[in-house]
């Protein structure tokens, strides 16, 4: 397989994952902003921060208000992480690697692009936001479904999955990075309704609110939320789950090519660290430090994969 093709697949699926996660974060932020107008500005600021685009946003807007944030995260072509930018990026990559995709995956990606091109052609009003966000998540899910249903389980699939899980790990970690203080035991409003709303919002950002309630009926506390999102192997957006998948897919590539590379050496300890940690040890060490280190390691692994598999010349 061409290195460029591997890179195209990797980024195609990073972009699709990002579009979905941005939609989720907006959804969670929107709910808080709706219910607590006094907290709205902070909430929008943290949504923008979790999307990793604070600098670009503040270069463009002075205030964190719904209309601007929604537009910036969904439609703005100056924001290279806006949903429209990444969907266009995903489709351009899909066109580039079209020979590596089944007809179903290509068509799902193209449909996603056509649908969102229409949907995001004009500014989105708050009234229409939930529906638009639903469509974004759904379109991304359709591509994933086509991928699972029709693609060979070979190196092509592995690079697609690596992109998905590296991006997902990054996005989940960023949400925690922005909101970690809400989860600290020392937070001033422990037990207040504000905390409840914030906790709910974090869970919602990773589509985990129902799963959490189902697993922990009646009790909601910051430490168990952190444990769930960082360490639970069953939650498909947790850091542990994402890394188990990353290590699996790197392992398939290692077996397939008969080559153990630097990226393999880097990924294994990241997973091991998650396995060895308990939520208590993470809080002892410092939640924020733990997450910051994780984001840095994850990014370094992405660069190493790019180098090891010759994505660029």
């Amino acid at each position: 397989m061409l290195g460029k093709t591997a890179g195209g697949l990797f980024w195609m699926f990073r972009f699709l994952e990002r579009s979905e996660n941005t939609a989720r974060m907006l959804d969670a932020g929107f709910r808080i902003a709706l219910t607590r107008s006094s907290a709205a500005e902070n909430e929008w600021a943290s949504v923008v921060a979790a999307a990793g685009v604070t600098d670009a946003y503040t270069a463009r807007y002075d205030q964190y208000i719904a209309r601007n944030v929604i537009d910036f995260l969904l439609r703005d072509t100056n924001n290279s992480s806006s949903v429209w930018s990444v969907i266009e990026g995903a489709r351009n990559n899909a066109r580039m690697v079209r020979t590596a995709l089944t007809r179903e995956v290509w068509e799902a990606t193209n449909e996603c692009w056509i649908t969102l091109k229409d949907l995001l052609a004009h500014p989105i009003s708050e009234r229409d936001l939930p529906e638009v966000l639903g469509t974004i998540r759904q379109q991304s899910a359709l591509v994933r479904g086509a991928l699972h249903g029709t693609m060979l389980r070979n190196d092509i699939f592995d690079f697609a999955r690596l992109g998905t899980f590296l991006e997902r790990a990054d996005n989940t970690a960023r949400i925690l990075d922005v909101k970690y203080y809400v989860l600290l035991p020392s937070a001033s409003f422990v037990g207040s309704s504000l905390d409840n709303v914030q906790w709910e919002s974090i869970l919602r950002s990773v589509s985990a609110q129902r799963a959490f309630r189902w697993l922990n009926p009646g009790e909601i506390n910051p430490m168990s939320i952190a444990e769930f999102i960082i360490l639970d192997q069953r939650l498909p957006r947790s850091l542990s789950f994402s890394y188990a998948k990353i290590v699996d897919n790197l392992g398939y590539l290692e077996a397939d090519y008969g080559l153990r590379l630097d990226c393999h050496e880097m990924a294994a300890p990241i997973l091991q660290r998650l396995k060895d940690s308990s939520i208590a040890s993470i809080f002892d060490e410092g939640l924020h430090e733990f997450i910051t280190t994780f984001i840095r390691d994850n990014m370094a692994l992405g660069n190493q994969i790019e180098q090891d598999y010759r994505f660029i010349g």
Partner: protein
Amino acid sequence: MNGKKGFVSFFQYFIYRGNFAVAPQYKSSNLVSMQKTQTVFDEMNGEAGDVRYPYDEYQKWLSGEDPARLRRKSSAAEAFFRRTGITFNVYGREEAAERLIPFDIIPRVISAREWARLERGIEQRVRAINAFLHDIYHRQEIIRAGRIPKELIANNDAFLPQMIGVSPPGNVYTHIVGTDLVRTGEDEFYVLEDNARTPSGVSYMLENRETMLHMFPELFAQVKVRSVSDYPKNLRRSLGECAPPACDGKPVVAVLTPGIHNSAYFEHSFLADQMGAELVEGHDLRVIDGRIAMRTTQGFAPIDVLYRRVDDEYLDPLNFNPESQLGVAGIMDVYRAGGITIANAPGTGIADDKAIYSYIPEIVEFYTGESAILKNVPTWRCAEPEALAYVLDNLEELVVKEVHGSGGYGMLVGPAASKREISAFRSKLKARPGNYIAQPTLALSTVPILTKKGLAPRHVDLRPFVLVSPRSVNITPGGLTRVALKAGSLVVNSSQGGGTKDTWVLEE
């Protein structure tokens, strides 16, 4: 309203019955004898107004069809093309960067007998062109024999000095050819262009047929149409047969594309996909140990045959345009040393240059000893003072083309042009006469298309696709029919708003 009955009259009313006088802008002229019949030949309805025999079976099916259903099918086809992403990019138009080529669901039908003759004529022409290319880059016998003027080669940008003395693997220069044909009557076919560089459109031939099979399966049970679907397999085989001396084992084929923003990118990825070949860009390739190698996830792997969809000029920054980012530095040196096959060979443009075009009948005769089966359109070479004078006097009657132009850009269709356009063109022509040739405006044949108001005739051309290997010349039965969608328009190019049709060659 009343089902079938209403439907029949619908078609009878709108159907084009041929034999119409040419639209008024085609002034009668005594330019060339071929224009003696100022009528347009309709391939479905002929000149007498009866359905021509190749269309018999289709017409039977058509007369039983509900027009509303046909129109639904027509929209379904468009949706299918859009979903599949069968698009082309238009240069210089930001808002419509990707467009669909309109597809018309009425097929263009060619009889077995008509096809057999075209096939012979095309093969003869293609063989002569390959012989010409070999000669022109070696001993230049044809110039020594005084059959074509030396200046035509010496001063021609399409002639690549870097190819002098180079013999490509198997002596094949034009691995893939798309001969543009037009028709003006029952037995009147003309070659308009030879397209010996990198003809495009074959993906539309294949997808148009796929679409028709998908939408009208019953039609293909009724009418025996020759299949075109082997093209990718034949292309792969044909390219493999041209593997270079350095190839050991099964030839590795790759398609070189300028990238996703190129107008024909869909076709590049489509062909690579269908052949099971890698789709590469210049930055995926480099020279390693005298071979062209592509960067894979497991290191660099050599390529044997490169089907390049990048123009000569951009192929090698060391040997041609130094600014090019689309090519591979040093590929020409590898090529000359037998390390890779480049298809089509660099320098083939000299054979489809519009100035050389007018000499093709001589070229066919010189290399094959036969006279050309397919006719050329009479051509005035504006480099010649007498011809120029004539062309300047008759601009409103003629089609004037740039010698190196393609895609319908930079041409003048006299009868359709305004006074102002003609006078602007006149100055361009006077400034650089050698840059232009002129041809009479042919009364191109028509085939009906489905419009909102029923069937209506539109002008068409035909591009069959030819594969050349050291072992054979293979012509896919069919090709790309391009159709002008505006009534009376003669410009069929997709870049100028033309559409396409499925092209049927009937079995015996």
